């Protein structure tokens, strides 16, 4: 047991932080989120260049062959800098689906291009009224000749508008809430019958509603085994949830540092407001939330790759509960302790607040994961 980063991990962290420190200042990010695409092709190319897009993938495809702790390092850094590029959607979700469930042909076709920054992905899962239930899939895939026809309506697809390929969950059997009968398909965003409506999230990430009307797919579009997609969906969403926890830890770190700095510099009644005990104790509680969130995010990233699905569910849900609570606590306190300034668009703290708030309920809020944890502990 040890908590040290390896030399390679330290290098990864240093390289990425150096890049973000110069190329991803709050001002630079401001221009990126105001751009039509909502993210930067240059940043994406740089992430490819630095090998950041390759971190979790096998060397066979040009990947770095990293662990989920390597990914934790990436996401902590992204969280601090509030990176808006479609990294989670492409690497954490789409790429993970292909790497874990794709055929040799699918992996060889997609992963090298993805790693080189030439192929973006997204995961089209959520439907109206589905909330966090991953079983709730009504989009239908019907066999047609040698292939399939897709019909359905997906909502709030993270970075769906910029993805080259969407991983779409659709029902090939079973009733609308069954785990059995869910299949996964690789769908080109520009395929006939795919209608994408893009939205800007208040946290400055992009989302899209994806309408699938008679979308014709070849046989090779199926990812994994017909009707058996649910296990993979759950596994990949757990993986993405662990990464999101790491991103939250980075954002919480920023909120902690910025708030502490503000307490030391903001003066009222002739003294720094950090001299008031009422505020000191609240600042300490922010620190405690940060340390606890960081610990459980580490645990989730270490355990998310375990073969024991019940254990994976239990730990990821535990992490999401703590991180959601900490994200809420720290983001709210950071705004409060910044006073009026915390309310302004001008300060990064308000952007951090919005991102943390949305992370707290992405892939299931604390209530959802409390129920899931209890079920997994039975």
């Amino acid at each position, binding site marked *: *047991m040890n*908590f040290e980063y390896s030399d390679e991990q330290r290098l990864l962290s240093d390289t990425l932080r150096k890049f973000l420190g110069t190329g991803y200042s709050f001002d630079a990010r401001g221009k990126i989120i105001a751009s039509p695409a909502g993210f930067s092709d240059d940043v994406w190319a740089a992430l490819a260049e630095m090998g950041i897009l390759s971190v979790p993938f096998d060397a066979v495809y040009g990947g770095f062959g990293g662990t989920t702790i390597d990914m934790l390092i990436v996401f902590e850094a992204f969280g601090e800098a509030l990176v808006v590029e479609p990294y989670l959607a492409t690497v954490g979700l789409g790429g993970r689906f292909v790497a874990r469930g794709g055929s040799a042909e699918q992996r060889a076709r997609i992963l090298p291009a993805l790693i080189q920054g030439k192929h973006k992905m997204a995961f089209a899962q959520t439907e109206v009224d589905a909330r966090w239930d991953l079983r709730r899939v009504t989009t239908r895939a019907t066999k047609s000749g040698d292939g399939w026809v897709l019909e359905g309506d997906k909502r709030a697809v993270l970075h769906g508008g910029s993805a080259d390929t969407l991983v779409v969950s659709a029902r090939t059997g079973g009733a609308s809430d069954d785990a059995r009968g869910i299949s996964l398909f690789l769908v080109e965003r520009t395929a006939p019958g795919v209608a994408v409506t893009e939205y800007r999230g208040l946290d400055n990430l992009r989302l899209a509603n994806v309408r699938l009307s008679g979308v014709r797919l070849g046989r090779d579009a199926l990812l994994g085994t017909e009707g058996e997609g649910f296990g993979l969906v759950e596994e990949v969403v757990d993986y993405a949830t662990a990464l999101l926890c790491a991103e939250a830890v980075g954002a919480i770190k920023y909120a902690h540092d910025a708030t502490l700095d503000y307490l*030391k510099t903001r003066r009222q009644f002739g003294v720094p407001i950090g001299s008031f005990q009422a505020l000191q104790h609240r*600042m300490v509680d922010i620190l405690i939330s940060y340390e*606890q969130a960081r610990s459980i995010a580490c645990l989730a990233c270490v355990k998310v790759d375990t073969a024991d699905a019940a254990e994976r569910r239990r730990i990821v849900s535990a992490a999401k509960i*703590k991180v959601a609570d900490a994200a809420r606590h720290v983001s709210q306190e950071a705004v409060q302790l910044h006073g009026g300034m915390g309310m302004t668009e001008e300060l990064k703290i308000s952007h951090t607040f919005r991102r943390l708030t949305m992370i707290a309920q992405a892939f299931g809020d604390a209530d959802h994961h409390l129920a899931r944890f209890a079920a997994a502990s039975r």
Partner: protein
Amino acid sequence: MDLNYSPEETAFRDEVRAWIEANLPSEPRDKVLSYGELTKDELLGWHKTLAKKGWIAPHWPREWGGTDWTVVQRYIFEEECGAAGCPPIVPFGVRMCAPVLLRFGTDAQKQRFLPRIYNGDDFWVQGYSEPGAGSDLASLKTRAVRDGDHYVVTGQKIWTTLGHYGDWIFCLVRTDPKTEKRQDGISFLLVDMKSPGITVRPIVLLDQSREVNEVFFDDVAVPAENLVHEENKGWTVAKFLLGYERMGTGNIAVCKRELARVKELAARAGLLDDPRFTDRLTRVEVELMALEITNLRFLDQLRGGRPPGAEVSLLKIKGTEIQQALTELMMQTAGPLAPIFRPVAPDAPFDAFTATLFPRYCNVRKATIYAGSNEIQRNIIAKATLGL
């Protein structure tokens, strides 16, 4: 980063587990697991068993009986002791007085006291708080006046945990009442509790237990050789010791055992089907899972013998909050039976275990108060870690 035990660490865990299994007598263990009150002999008995094995003071230097265990080994040892229901190691000698002597004591003091502390020959207690000096410890008034080759001590200590078992007490006393800063003029004295002039009186707590005491000093003669460090430099010693005192207060292994017990009791009471109960239970469990990692991360930083700093305050705050939450959940499992405390007729049938749950909830309220209240811990973190 690797959160799994190495093969060597696993082998060590198995060794510790097997040894405890073979050497822990069932009587004190059952008492621990059913929240009974341990006698002085039971506490010292387990201490002596560990001393004989060479495991009573892992963190001491090798020459005095330390084990040279790694941080992880120490953690594994505590984990196994907690899980098995070993009696607690009373911290005042081994974990508090001894580190002070090792750091500040003379050779003669080390030779005289350390082997006896190690072997459990004396029961040590702590004389810090006074009626007017709790969180504001530096305002203490117990006087020690030098008179030839001894000090004459007069005053009162309070909240002396297990003071009624005490053979020796280490005390903070005021040797110079006229200093400008109150922290100056304090000294650290070792006092034999059999000395004439010492009176120990129990304080009954809100669970009606006898655990803490008042200790009165009435012209007690203490040999000057029992002064540790220089006269009027006791505050340095006190601060050094406080870090060690907090170290053992967020006992994670015991919390894990208690958590398992809450689940067992909740299952019996049908509460695991009640999402209102399970949600609260889960939040405590998750906090404990995180604290276990936080604890290990901090211990990892303590490698190389650096004395514990403000990070242990964080462990103390969270650990004690979790302890309290667990006793609260546990009491709740008793439902309408919680108030039953003692039968009026001594031989009446009686569920003695259920009767411990409410008193325990009451008793553990102390955890966020002792060893520096959690508010004081927040002050410490604000100052030392955050620089506020």
